[in-house]
């Protein structure tokens, strides 16, 4: 459903991705792993149009993302949970979620999405009137994911959901993500914690210095010597 061929991306005049190719099929869970500054976040930002990019192919369900305005991409079914959560500070939890549902105007549908988010993250329901920036880090991450889910996405781009969170919270988060995936949402996950990522995803790409260096099923990669040495510390 998401096809990427020869994707390059720039920050200003600096090229940060050098022609990567990547496929995500309907219903899959795919991880993109690599070290710091390897280009993982840039890949997601390039898909969402937040950085300058050029590609031989960059399509989602046949729609050409290169010729779509960044703000129109969510309406195609892609929801992006950015690195560092980026919740709307000063706005309440419920307002954050409602902004997430900006492209979905029907009240009934919104009600359903809200119920779904609150059932996935009951703690958000408790704090619905609280300002977003008064939440704990884990709650903020849940809010960011919940906000993305409000748009009823078919593809969820997740950028470092475990960053800066206590292990217990991370487990809780990934349980919730499992349930999200079970509802049929395709997931492209960027994660620095490689074992966590390979655990969750069925396939993974390894990115190094802006290029894809390896890809395969999670099982293959877990057993790959290079991966074990460089990323899993075994």
């Amino acid at each position, binding site marked *: 459903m998401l096809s990427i061929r020869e994707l390059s991306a720039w920050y200003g005049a600096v090229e940060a991705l050098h022609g990567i190719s990547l496929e995500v099929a309907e219903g899959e869970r795919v991880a993109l792993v690599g070290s710091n500054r390897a280009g993982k976040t840039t890949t997601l930002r390039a898909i*969402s149009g937040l950085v300058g990019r050029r590609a031989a192919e960059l399509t989602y369900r046949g729609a050409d993302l290169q010729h779509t305005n960044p703000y129109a991409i*969510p309406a195609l079914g892609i929801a992006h949970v*950015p690195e560092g959560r980026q919740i*709307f*500070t000063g706005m309440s939890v419920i307002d954050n979620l409602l902004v*997430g549902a900006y492209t979905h105007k029907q009240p009934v549908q919104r009600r359903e999405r809200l119920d779904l988010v609150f059932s996935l993250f009951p703690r958000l329901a408790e704090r619905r009137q609280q300002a977003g920036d008064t939440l704990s880090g884990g709650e903020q991450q849940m809010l960011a994911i919940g906000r993305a889910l409000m748009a009823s996405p078919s593809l969820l781009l997740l950028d470092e959901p475990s960053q800066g969170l206590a292990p217990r919270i991370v487990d809780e988060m990934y349980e919730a993500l499992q349930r999200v995936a079970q509802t049929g949402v395709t997931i492209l996950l960027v994660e620095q914690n490689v074992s966590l990522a390979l655990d969750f995803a069925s396939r993974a790409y390894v990115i190094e210095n802006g290029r894809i260096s390896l890809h395969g099923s999670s099982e293959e990669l877990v057993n790959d010597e290079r991966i074990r040495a460089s990323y899993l510390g075994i």
Partner: protein
Amino acid sequence: MAVLQALVNGTLVGGVYALITVGLTLIFGVLEIVNFAQGEFLMVGMYVAYFSYVALHLDPMLSAVLAFGVLFGIGAVLERWLVRRVLHGPEISQIFLTVGISIALQNAALAFFGSDFHSVHVPYQTASLSLGPIPISVPYLLAFAWGAAINLLLYVFLVRTDFGRAMRAVAVNAVAATLSGINVSRVRMIAFAIGAGLAGLAGAVILPYAYVYPTIGLQYVVIMFTIAVLGGLGNVNGAVIGSLIVGITQALSALFLPSALQNLVVFALFVAVLMIKPSGLLGRSHAH
């Protein structure tokens, strides 16, 4: 008694100030630029009301809606063609772009409308109601009512509607807003247009007790800035509170101090507040 009268007057004037200032605050909140042409938008609004009165005998309280529309259009065009280009540019461009627009508007008014003073004649112009022994000016009261209504409407718009929420979202985090499917450029354009429109509306509403000529904006612009910064630039509720503080301070200080020093007190208060809280009373702190 005199104090009570001053409080009443100060509150009324404060309500009017809130109406005049809220547009500036909205523009700063969403686009993070200080619009130095806001006084000229007010001036154009006054001319719209004046010409509506001359040509159509429309009361400024009604032509205020028309003034809003005209300035909304002007604001949208200016944002689309000019302001947008400096939003990511250096601060200097942001400040002096709107200074340039204000010079051009002032002199356009001079060239096309002439330098004469204009005002309107409405029956309630010098009327006043009596609240016990305290007279309350009707034109101020009407302007105050408009101010209250607009601030309430704006509040409802920002809090209860999707587009208003989107506007707040853009103000806080434009990237996350884009990722939520919000057309950030369009939201900014409309925020600028609404901000300009509100200045136009305010201009119309104050016309019954004031007058218009090309450089009238200069008389209001400093007080606008003071209030907007005092309340916290970008914070709409802050603008209301700042307006009331300035209105009441002016009225009360007039009781004890020479009128010539009236604005000195306001400025001193303004500087003092910023020394204690550099982002204004209700302003959010910026990581700049």
